[in-house]
């Protein structure tokens, strides 16, 4: 009782941010937003690949170097890896019951995803900027 009496914060202030993982619906919502983006970007990516079926190296590079394609590719890569991390996170949380293994996997998929996004983005930029 004495510790409670010393806490001068408003009860609402103490309750805020104390959802399941202290981030409320952030994970759920971001998963839906990236999903919506991937409906458009995924279909665009498949159609671009089909258009490049017979392309040789030079024309494949030329296609990626087009500004719109470069922008959409980078957007696709970011949305794809972000959505993948959010999904894998739930799978790991559901099935990995040893706490340290769970943490290691959760951090590892984030490292892999961030590095992959950076590598893909650099690759697209190198092609687009002609390096």
């Amino acid at each position, binding site marked *: 009782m004495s510790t409670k009496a010393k806490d001068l914060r408003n009860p609402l202030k103490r309750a805020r941010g104390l959802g399941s993982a202290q981030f409320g619906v952030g994970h759920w919502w971001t998963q839906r937003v990236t999903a919506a983006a991937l409906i458009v970007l995924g279909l665009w990516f498949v159609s671009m690949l089909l258009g490049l079926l017979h392309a040789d190296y030079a024309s494949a590079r030329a296609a990626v170097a087009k500004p719109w394609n470069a922008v959409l590719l980078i957007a696709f890569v970011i949305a794809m890896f972000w959505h993948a991390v959010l999904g894998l996170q739930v799978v790991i949380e559901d099935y990995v019951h040893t706490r340290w293994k769970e943490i290691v996997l959760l951090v590892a998929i984030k490292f892999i995803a961030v590095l992959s996004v950076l*590598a*893909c983005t650099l690759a697209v930029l190198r092609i687009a900027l002609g390096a």
Partner: protein
Amino acid sequence: MADTQRPLSPHLQIYKWQVQMVTSILHRATGIALAVGTLMVLWGLVSLAAGEDAFNQFKICSGSPLGMILLIGWTWALFYHLCNGIRHLVQDAGAGYAIAQFVRSSWMSIIASIVLTILVWAYVLTAGGAA
């Protein structure tokens, strides 16, 4: 697991298989498969930026029998996750929860994903081989 004598929730083998169950399990399974497939996108883009030799190696690997089998699998996984993902977004909006609608939309996800996969690979193969 808590060390008590409480009854456990029934395991999968006790349930009667229903299509809604299959779509739910497949959504997660295809999601995991697609998360692995993101590395193929990474490889393709990085090799395209790295030079013609690296890109040709990528093309040879993805055009090999194993590569084609994996690509067909990823194509179906992508279309299934896409169709069923749209179904989930509709359900997130609060629609389609009547049992008959739920079962029908489950079948629509499965059938549409198979049809789209066949269409894409019919195009790829009649257009003269993959990659």
